[in-house]
């Protein structure tokens, strides 16, 4: 990092040669430190994968077994057998994630457009109010909303979590608004002169330009729904309506009840690995989008 600067300001061939060595030594140290750190960061997941291929007695051996022989790949289909994971997947994806992500993207796009691309009186004040709501802890609204949803008969459904997603979350609105402000006004003006309605402009002119921003919103919304625990914990009580998050947690008791006490831990690790896979795959495919999305929020925030 600072090696390049020293090269720039250093002088003389001999100085450069020793600087080159120092540079290399620095690099080696850097790689060493980083590799050690990365290992400690990834070790828990390696242990998860390794444990998913073991039998119960192999989990807590002293010293620990990192590569079980034989590798029990059968754990995976066996673990899936005891609980209706297809139903849980359906609950998580079809009933929760998909409508929620679509809602978040669409509503944030529309509202951010209103805050960024249309000049109107009071716009900045309302926007400030919107941001201020980010400070309010979710706990404050939790109980009254529970009472309301119960009266509406929405318990044990995903409506309490999906419906609010269609009304714009301050965080997504903020991010998309910052994004939209970078698009030149002339585009909108030209479209308006051509007689295009605002909705038309959003759909045909600005919308396509917003795609990177929308991708970030969608990505984070997906991961958020996939991992959401507290929401379903409050509203979903019937086990057949559980999302994967709750099902995973209740797995230990369920397995015990089935008498499948052997291999409980490896089965749980196997399911955990499966649950992590979609998120990891998504991440490695869309790495740029993830990272740029976070960077944008952090820089302009």
């Amino acid at each position, binding site marked *: *990092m*600072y090696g390049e*600067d020293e090269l*720039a300001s250093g002088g003389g061939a001999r100085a450069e040669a020793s600087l080159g060595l120092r540079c290399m030594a620095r*690099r080696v140290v850097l*790689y060493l430190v*980083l590799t050690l*750190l*990365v290992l400690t*960061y*990834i070790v*828990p*997941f390696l*242990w*998860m994968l390794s*444990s998913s291929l073991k039998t119960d007695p192999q989990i*807590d051996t002293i*010293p*620990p077994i990192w590569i079980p022989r034989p590798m029990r790949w059968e754990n995976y289909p066996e673990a899936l057998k005891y609980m209706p994971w297809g139903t849980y997947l359906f609950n998580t994806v079809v009933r929760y994630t998909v409508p929620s992500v679509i809602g978040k993207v669409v509503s944030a796009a529309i*509202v951010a*457009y*209103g805050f960024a691309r*249309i*000049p*109107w*009186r009071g*716009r900045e004040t309302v926007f400030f109010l919107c941001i201020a709501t*980010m*400070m*309010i*802890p*979710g*706990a*404050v*609204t*939790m*109980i*009254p909303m529970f*009472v*309301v949803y119960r009266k509406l008969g929405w318990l044990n459904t995903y409506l309490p979590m999906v419906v*609010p997603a269609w*009304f*714009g979350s301050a965080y997504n609105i903020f991010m998309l608004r910052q994004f939209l402000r970078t698009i030149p006004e002339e585009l909108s003006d030209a479209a308006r002169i051509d*007689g295009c309605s605002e909705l038309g402009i959003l759909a045909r002119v600005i919308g396509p330009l917003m795609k990177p921003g929308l991708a970030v919103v969608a990505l984070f919304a997906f991961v958020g729904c996939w991992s959401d*625990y507290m929401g379903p914990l*409050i509203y979903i009580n019937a086990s057949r309506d559980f999302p994967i998050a709750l099902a995973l*947690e209740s797995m230990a008791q369920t397995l015990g009840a089935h008498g499948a006490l052997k291999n409980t*831990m490896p089965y*749980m*690790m196997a399911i*955990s690995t499966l649950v992590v896979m979609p*998120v990891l795959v998504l*991440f490695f495919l869309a790495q740029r989008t*993830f*990272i740029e999305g*976070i*960077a944008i929020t*952090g*820089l302009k*925030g």
Partner: protein
Amino acid sequence: MKEASRRRWLSRSHINQINGMLFVAPWAIGFLAFGAYPILMSAYYSLTYYDGLRAPRFLGLGNYQELLLADRVMKQVSANTIWWVLLAVPAGIVSAFLLANLLNSRFRGRSIFRALFFVPSIVPTMVSAQIWRLVLNTNFGVINTTLVSLGWRVIPFLSKPSLAKPTLLAINCWAQGSAMVIFLAALQDVPKSLYEAATVDGASAWDRFWRITVPLCTPSAFFMLITGMIGGFQSFTFPWLLTGGGPNNATEFFSMYLYRNAFEYMKMGYASALAWILCIVVVLSSIVMFRTSDRWVFYGA
């Protein structure tokens, strides 16, 4: 054309005003329904005894009296939460900053390292909790079985009250991928010319770090401190799944205690009062942070 068919007095600014408000309406409606209404109801519930089934019974300030004076668990819970916000949140930010600095130079394999350091932060929380619960177990967790096989003593990470919170703090630092990414972006925004000028003036690497790098990253640090504080006060899923608040309430945080009061003890009035205390504390802390920010945040670049 739509414009031509409108009446003459509906000027562009009027149309913009209507359109603007229409586009923002989904958020506004959502705010009234999911924000303003529950906040007001929550204030009302906090003044009642409400078990969720029978009608709320007015209590005046009884709940607040109880939680401020009589509730001993509340004292522990508050201490835990304050500990977390004052120690864990800054620790997470600092560790993310250090990591970002390590990754800041251009070297081969950098994006792989960056991705690997980022992974813990997007893995679903409940999976992380499962894994860490297994890894940190006093008797059969891999860390302790490794220690025992080397002839050393076990470390009761999660079963000793004084170790539980520091363990959570360390895991929190492990999951600061998004903070690291934000700092990376901020670090890359620092003009190289500043470093060069400083080197020419004879500044050491240490000087350059503390006089250039750190000050120019304070805006991002501030953003993360605020969002981290707000999130830290509401910390729920991970401690809930990892330790369930134990041992001996050592890791019982505010949101968890709130949830218990509302949904386990069915003391919704009391829980609402707790929620309001939380709200006040968060808002006050945010104001204090904003006010004191001028002294250490450097808005230069």
